[in-house]
């Protein structure tokens, strides 16, 4: 396993790209080894909020030492983050977690599904799958609340992107699965990140269709490195590390084979 580290990093830019959604580029040499589906932890400066905030890697430019995160302002920590200006030093821990298993896409029609703030990791994933060039076909389906289709253009550099919107203001009205059936897309592999109800529906769909699905889970974290056992998810079989039916999302995940977890 590659060495994790807590490093000083620098904010290169910060842009608001939709309601409450911010796009930040960070200077850090973690970019060189960052993989789609991995995440970093950002440590707030406010002293009342001590715990690191896990945020997925949205884009990594290894040569330029640049990492990108896209996040929604959800509370105090992300609010603080949204106020950082260019040049601000921040502390981050990375690269954390396993990332998506690119090899599973080889020779397959793969659909990437991102829902809401689960969309960002799909950009890096599309980029890596495209770069690998082993998937037979890559399609992205992104679920948005409304017509603010953040990151859609970025992802289109690597694969066709279909949008689903809750309010029907763009793409298919409904969720990502609605869009998939409306578009009659029948993937052999799904890779997804998004809210729990979406992931549950994908797991159910994949099981019904007998296809593979790799889903990225979220849970409240304290350490981010596998030490506190705060971030577990239920597993179908006994987990190899914990010897109970719990896996740590931060180190054993965040990406799991949908069949292996009980969500």
């Amino acid at each position, binding site marked *: 396993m590659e060495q994790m580290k807590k490093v000083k990093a620098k904010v290169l830019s910060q842009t608001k790209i939709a309601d409450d959604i911010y796009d930040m580029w960070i200077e850090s040499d973690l970019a060189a080894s960052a993989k789609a589906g991995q995440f970093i932890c950002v440590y707030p400066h406010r002293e009342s909020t001590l715990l690191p905030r896990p945020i997925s890697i949205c884009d990594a430019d290894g040569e330029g030492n640049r990492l990108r995160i896209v996040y929604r302002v959800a509370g105090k920590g992300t609010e603080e983050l949204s106020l950082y200006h260019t040049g601000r030093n921040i502390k981050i821990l990375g690269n954390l977690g396993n990332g998506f298993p690119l090899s599973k896409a080889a020779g397959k029609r793969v659909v990437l599904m991102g829902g809401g703030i689960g969309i960002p990791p799909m950009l890096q994933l599309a980029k890596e799958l495209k770069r690998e060039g082993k998937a037979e076909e890559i399609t992205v389906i992104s679920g948005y609340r409304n017509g603010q289709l953040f990151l859609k253009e970025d992802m289109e550099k690597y694969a066709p992107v279909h949008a689903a919107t809750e309010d029907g203001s763009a793409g298919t009205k409904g969720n990502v699965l609605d869009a998939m059936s409306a578009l009659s897309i029948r993937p052999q592999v799904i890779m997804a990140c998004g809210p729990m109800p979406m992931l549950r529906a994908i797991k159910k769909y994949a099981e019904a269709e007998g296809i593979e699905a790799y889903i990225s889970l979220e849970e409240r974290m*304290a350490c981010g490195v596998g030490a506190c056992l705060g971030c577990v998810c239920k597993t179908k079989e006994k987990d190899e590390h914990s010897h109970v039916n719990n896996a740590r999302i931060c180190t054993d995940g965040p990406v799991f084979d949908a069949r292996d977890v009980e969500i």
Partner: protein
Amino acid sequence: MKNKFFTRKFVPAAQSLQAMRKVWLFRMNTKVTIAGVEFKNPVMTASGTFGSGMEYAQFVDLNRLGAVVTKGVANVPWEGNPTPRIAETYGGMLNAIGLQNPGVEVFLQRDLPFLKKYDTKVIVNVCGKTVEDYLEVVERLGDSGVDMLEINVSCPNVKEGAIAFGQKADCLYDITSQIKKKAKQPVIMKLSPNVTDITEMAKAAEAAGADALSMINTITGMKIDIHKRAFVLANKTGGLSGPAIKPVAVRMVYQASHAVKIPVIGMGGISDAEDAIEFLMAGATAVAVGAMNFVNPYATEETVKGIEEYMRKYGIEDINSLIGCVE
């Protein structure tokens, strides 16, 4: 690796230059002894906040630590509580892990061999639901090469009753003496802060033969999400730890260490050397860094270094002279 300042043998000629002398030739002892076990320095990890040691070995040199204290280990694997298990509070955090652990066999086969590779002491935190559970673990660890046992009778996140051992003096006396009968290693009783009088508990453990005490475990707390109208933790309540609780912990360490003769290991909100020294001065013989590992993965090793700096700055030759020095 021994403490580099203590073991420095050669005294260069520059001795007369005051500044260099102060910095380089200052011989300091950071060793402390608890129940006959010698620790290279008083900085330990607080149980449950340092995994099995492996998770933080990539950040800190475990050889630099006085001891690694493991996550609670039970006789059989425990599932722990449902999630969410973590909530953030002002200057602290709540946890309701519920003592998930892979059980003593896995500990012996996987985690202990890893820890034994390092030149640090290994203290196993033992948990159980019944006295028999505890005794099973204690016996199983008997010939294992583990240096000490820390008995967690104070976890507030397990419904089945363990906490009662830590909240009633007679129960505490009873479990302590039973464990002492079986234990091959010195026994540390880890006390709960959720009591009216910590000295009563400390005295009960001492009377029952405990070799040392550690405190404090987490203080029971709760957080409600007013927008979702729901408890943040699935378990409703959780244990509060972090800088927020430090004044309570210092007070209890002071009270307990003045009420009993056995050594006290202090913890509760320690972030750095300043905090650690505050506990030593209050009467702790050693200290442990807990939740702050999550905030700064380097916290334990930085605490060791910071204590050395403090000693150099004030010309303190023996760390033992700091223990309980404020009365």
